């Protein structure tokens, strides 16, 4: 191993045959790493010969905090896992608690959950594509367009739950507050306008020759490797594996909606990019159906006690298809007011473990693009 300091020392000492392998520490404060994430990259010229992801800079003791608090008080902390998608994080957690304590959920609440989750998926994918293109050098423009639409969705979240990003909206047994008819009308209006945005957003760069040269054949993740590594979400589907938990588990009321699961062919960065665009379209389809079918009724199971919930001793695993992949919460109850064990299965961390295999043999500039296509949020990776 040759560090920069050692190289400098050897150059000063006047040695020959230097510069074969260079170790570069990318991050943790690097704009392309999407947070505080570091990669120890060993380079031979421009080529990556080894890459070691180093994370933990944003570790906040999430699991232990949740184990020391009541079941209710873990919900706002789940907002802060993947801080772009607080609604789906809430859902994963409340699903686990509902399984653990056997809590039913009213139908209207299930529909609103689908609506907010699909809006979350849409804004996450729009944002991710924006960031990915930014990493590739489309400096600002696509990201700005994506954030423009994302902001409209966040405004809706704010008028529903009170906060743009840290929504803290779902509760085991239902939701915190009901949505008004005016809010639903706003969502309908927004959803009607979003396909135009997706068309524009896609046309902006889909056939761009520079983008294709940069992404096609870059960072290929073979199907077998993806399955073996436990990769989930759009990453897995871009490699051609038909696995979507909305279809496999049919949690909530997802069995009532018709939508397709887009699949990729090559598993390269371009496929992952297109996968997000296609999933945005499918999300809009689900949203339209959910907005048509939403029933009236209560939004909270009347028998559930939010404060002082004491589920029977046992364990439960609740998982959902979060925008980034399978988000699972594993809970063990010992019959007291706080979980005995609380464990998060974060999709972006498990998707990140495969980074080295995708990057080997590529140029260092491609590492940034490949990392961007994985879609990580460090709040979730480090917890």
């Amino acid at each position, binding site marked *: 191993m040759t560090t920069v300091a050692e190289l400098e020392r050897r150059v000063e000492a006047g040695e020959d045959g230097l510069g074969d392998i260079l170790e570069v520490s990318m991050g943790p404060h690097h704009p392309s790493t999407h947070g505080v994430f570091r990669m120890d990259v060993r380079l031979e010229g421009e080529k990556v010969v080894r890459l070691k992801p180093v994370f933990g800079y944003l570790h906040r003791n999430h699991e232990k905090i949740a184990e020391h608090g009541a079941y209710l*008080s873990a919900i706002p902390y789940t907002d802060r896992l993947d801080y772009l998608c607080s609604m789906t994080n809430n859902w994963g957690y409340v699903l686990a608690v509902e399984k653990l304590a056997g809590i039913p959920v009213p139908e209207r609440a299930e529909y609103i959950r689908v609506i907010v989750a699909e809006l979350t998926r849409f804004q996450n994918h729009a944002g991710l594509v924006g960031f990915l293109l930014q990493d590739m050098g489309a400096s600002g423009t696509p990201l700005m367009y994506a954030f423009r639409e994302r902001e409209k969705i966040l405004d809706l979240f704010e*008028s529903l*739950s009170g906060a743009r990003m*840290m929504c803290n909206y779902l509760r085991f047994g239902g939701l915190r*507050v009901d949505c008004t008819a005016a809010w639903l009308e706003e969502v309908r209006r927004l959803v009607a306008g979003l396909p135009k945005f997706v068309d524009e957003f896609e*046309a902006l760069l889909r*056939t*761009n020759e520079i983008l294709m040269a940069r992404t096609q054949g870059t960072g290929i993740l073979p199907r077998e490797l993806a399955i073996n590594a436990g990769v989930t979400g759009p990453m897995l589907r871009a490699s051609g594996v038909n696995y979507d938990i909305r279809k496999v588990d049919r949690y909530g009321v997802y069995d009532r909606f018709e939508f397709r699961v887009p699949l990729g062919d090559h598993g390269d960065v371009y496929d992952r990019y297109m996968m997000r665009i296609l999933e945005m379209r499918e999300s809009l389809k689900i949203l339209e159906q959910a907005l048509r079918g939403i029933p009236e009724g209560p939004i909270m199971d009347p028998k559930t006690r939010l404060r002082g919930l004491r589920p029977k001793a046992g364990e439960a695993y609740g998982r959902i298809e979060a925008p980034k992949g399978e988000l699972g919460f594993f809970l063990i109850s010992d019959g007291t007011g706080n979980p005995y064990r609380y464990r998060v299965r974060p999709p972006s961390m498990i998707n990140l473990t495969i980074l080295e295999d995708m990057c080997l043999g590529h140029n260092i500039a491609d590492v940034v693009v490949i990392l961007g296509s994985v879609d990580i949020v460090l709040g979730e990776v480090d917890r």
Partner: protein
Amino acid sequence: MFGEGILQGLYETARNFFGSYVDKDRLVTVQYPEERHQLPEATREFPFLLYDGPDPEAGLRCVACQICEKECPPRCIHIEKSKDKKPDFVGKQQFYPAVFDIDVSVCMSCQICVEVCPFDAIRMDNEYELSTSNRFGGLLYTKRELAKPNEYYRKIHPTEAAETDDRRAKEAEEAKAKAAAAAAAAAAKAAQVAAIPAVAANGATGNGAAPKPAEQPADKKPVNQ
């Protein structure tokens, strides 16, 4: 043709650029702080304490039950219970917080304190320009800074406040009716008690009946006075 994709992208960019002059959906920038968004009613920033009437000390709704302190996920609330009691809105004697501090630099605006409060005493503010140059005490809000009148709550969350006010008015009315009924019952019992010695003098039944009327008014002391 090579370069077609690039041209198409440029076309989209141009459409967005020129569109932003005519289409409100494309131009979304707000020139803060000169211009501001209208905040939605549900917006929540940090908690505050509600009081009724003109005096923040006497009208404070908080009864120092400390539920919010226990449920607060980041534990940013600190309450010390009073030694004495004061009457609340239905006239019941309650404790009040001698100390009620919220460390806003720790608070994560999750609204769980609001959800668990059984006394409608704590609500979410929508004030967001809270920066201070005081590193040490600047974001530690005491009871005095936290207390805000009900009129303020009605202004920032009209729908929610109307609901709360209705419910509290109803509760107060019920309490009043109950107090009146209890007072009437107590008066009746008192009359009975006055009549009892005559019955008790007879012997047999007097023993069982006599303590009862004496016990019941003792429960409702404040009402009796």
